[in-house]
């Protein structure tokens, strides 16, 4: 009986130790990616955005806070894009049609990419929906943002402008 107890205990402990290496923490290099655009067949690379401050947002059509964030991010993008600010929104929907329907209701100017398998999201460790990363001009993650409420845009704008003015 002792062996059985030991086995069960070790099995339970093994289940609990689901440790994931946080691959995109502040101060680390942003993991590189090559992803197709949601609409059209252009492929985007993280390298294309070197020299720009990038707001990398992981979103999905079913995520209610994303509906709040998109118009605010679009306004922010339009305000600072000439100063070297880019917004890249990676869609994590398994069904592209749902993402396209979302974009018909909420059209935006910034780049939308599609990560069908979710592999990139797992590399960056997307702990909530949405999760966004502010990457500076050298490709280093400077800020990780979980979730979204409309007041968050002020803090994001502050962070973006400080990074834009630093270079």
């Amino acid at each position: 009986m002792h062996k059985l107890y030991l086995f069960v205990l070790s099995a339970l402990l093994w289940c609990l130790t689901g440790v994931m290496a946080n691959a995109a923490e502040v101060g680390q290099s942003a993991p590189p990616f090559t992803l197709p655009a949601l609409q059209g067949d252009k492929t985007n690379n993280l390298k294309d955005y070197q020299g720009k401050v990038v707001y990398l947002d992981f979103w999905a059509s079913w995520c209610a806070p994303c509906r709040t964030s998109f118009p605010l991010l679009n306004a922010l993008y339009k305000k600072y894009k000439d100063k070297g600010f880019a917004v890249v929104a990676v869609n994590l929907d398994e069904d592209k049609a749902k993402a396209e329907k979302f974009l018909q209701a909420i059209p935006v100017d910034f780049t939308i990419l599609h990560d069908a398998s979710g592999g990139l999201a797992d590399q960056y460790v997307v702990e909530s929906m949405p999760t966004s990363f502010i990457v500076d001009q050298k490709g280093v993650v400077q800020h990780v943002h979980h979730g979204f409420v409309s007041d968050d845009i002020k803090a994001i704008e502050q962070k973006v402008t400080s990074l834009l003015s630093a270079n």
Partner: protein
Amino acid sequence: MKTSIAAIILLAVLSTGCTEVLPRQRGNLALPQMGLTTDGLEFELRQHAFFSKESAAGGYGGGGGGCGCN
């Protein structure tokens, strides 16, 4: 001995039901029909009435539903 083996096999078979659902995979949980309540305002009203009657609250989950948003 036989019961131990049977128990281990049963545990192994049943644990295949345990799986990790990542936040990005919770699209189906975010569907309106998957919500715990049908009408948010009606639920709030009931919660408030319950608090008035019982002078206690709680026992049900917090906000955000099962979709992992916020």
